[in-house]
């Protein structure tokens, strides 16, 4: 574990609240990046970062000294981001019809065509990739982002999502399958 992180945690637990600020400053960018990749939304990602650090502070007493703070807070952020996506999808009523979906019972969301994330990728390919990403369930999307974009192992993904590594592997598998199916027209076009 990073000695600076460890020292800061000890200081916080001893009553020095300001020491937590150093941890926040050190890890905010990493959390924002993963939160943005999962939520696909800048404002949501900023909320997730704040929520993760708040939750982390509350749970700091339960943090094991041998653990790595960056991994620990990263997992909390992933969990917060996943919750955020699930809540957001719960609020949305639309369901896009991919009738051959492997998980007919899982809620899917309409493409967020007007979302800011969409604007960041130019061209039709980028737009289609984002649409494919949004068509995944929240768990699949998170698993895929962690595997494909964050280079996390399935064991790490399982730990972050609170699921068995094998279930994490299945989630990545389903995500890849769906992504390929959604992006098949690109393959033909290119």
């Amino acid at each position, binding site marked *: 574990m990073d000695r600076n992180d460890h020292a800061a945690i000890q200081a916080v637990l001893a*009553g020095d609240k300001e020491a937590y600020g150093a941890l*926040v400053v050190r890890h905010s960018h990493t959390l924002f990046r993963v939160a943005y*990749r999962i939520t696909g939304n800048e404002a949501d990602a900023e909320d997730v970062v704040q929520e993760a650090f708040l939750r982390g502070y509350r749970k700091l007493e339960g943090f094991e000294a041998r653990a790595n703070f960056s991994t620990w807070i990263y997992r909390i952020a992933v969990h917060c981001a996943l919750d955020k996506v699930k809540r957001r999808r719960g609020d949305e009523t639309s369901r896009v019809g991919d009738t051959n979906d492997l998980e007919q019972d899982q809620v899917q969301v309409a493409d967020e065509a007007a979302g800011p994330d969409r604007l960041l990728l130019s061209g039709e390919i980028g737009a289609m990739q984002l649409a494919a990403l949004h068509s995944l369930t929240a768990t699949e999307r998170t698993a895929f982002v962690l595997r494909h974009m964050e280079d996390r192992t399935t064991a790490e993904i399982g730990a972050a999502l609170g699921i068995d590594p094998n279930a994490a592997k299945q989630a990545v598998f389903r995500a890849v399958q769906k*992504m390929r199916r959604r*992006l098949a027209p690109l393959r033909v076009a290119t």
Partner: protein
Amino acid sequence: MRHLSEMELIGQVYGEADSPAAVEQHLAACGECAASFAELRRDLAGVDRVEAPARDAHYGDRVWAAIAPSLPLYAKHKRRLWSSGWAPGGWLRGLGYAAAVALLVAGAFYAGRIWEQREQKKQSPIANQQHQTQPNRQPIVVVVLDDHLDRSERFLVQLKHADVDSAQMASPLRDEARTLLAANRVCRKNLAQTDDPELATALDHLDSLLAETANEPGGLNAQAIARLQEQMNADGLLFEVRVLRSRITDRKAAGANPAKGGTI
């Protein structure tokens, strides 16, 4: 010959195959699987990484500035958790706290009245006249109210950030709401004699929220917490309490009570 499954191929792409050497050996020998593998790699390589918008160097400082006011001091926090009924069996301690607050407020009012009467007797008619044009000073009440608003603010912050999926949060929140409800009613009763509509309104809103939190039928489930969070946000209660608290803290610091209302 058994072909490799798509899952095995995906595992190989990401370097997590159960036996990578065996997969490689098979790919070298099986043209069909090798073609599938090449296609899979090409597909995945074509999926760009979503790049997050850049944050400037002060982003972490801004995050810290946003959350710092909501974080209690750790040592202080632990003491509060113990003393305010969050610990197992803390409900009785909560009742004790409420009773202590009630006694303190009543005692403060009584002491204030006695002190006021004595001061009036001591003062000359001119001084007495001047005194009547100034608001009363009851610093003890200000301290009690400040403490009550402080605890209420912490409760609202905890409710705001309550994890709706966590059953562990529900019981402490409910217990804290019950404790605060009793104290809030004492404060409301005493403030009913004053003329501070903002404070009275805030305490009314707080009373409503606390009562619902404390007496939610069927306990505090995720749906109930989400509804309470909505109610809190709709009333702007946290902001209201923070404004009032800063106002009262200022008065406490100034040691004076220049505003309308007399008792705070």
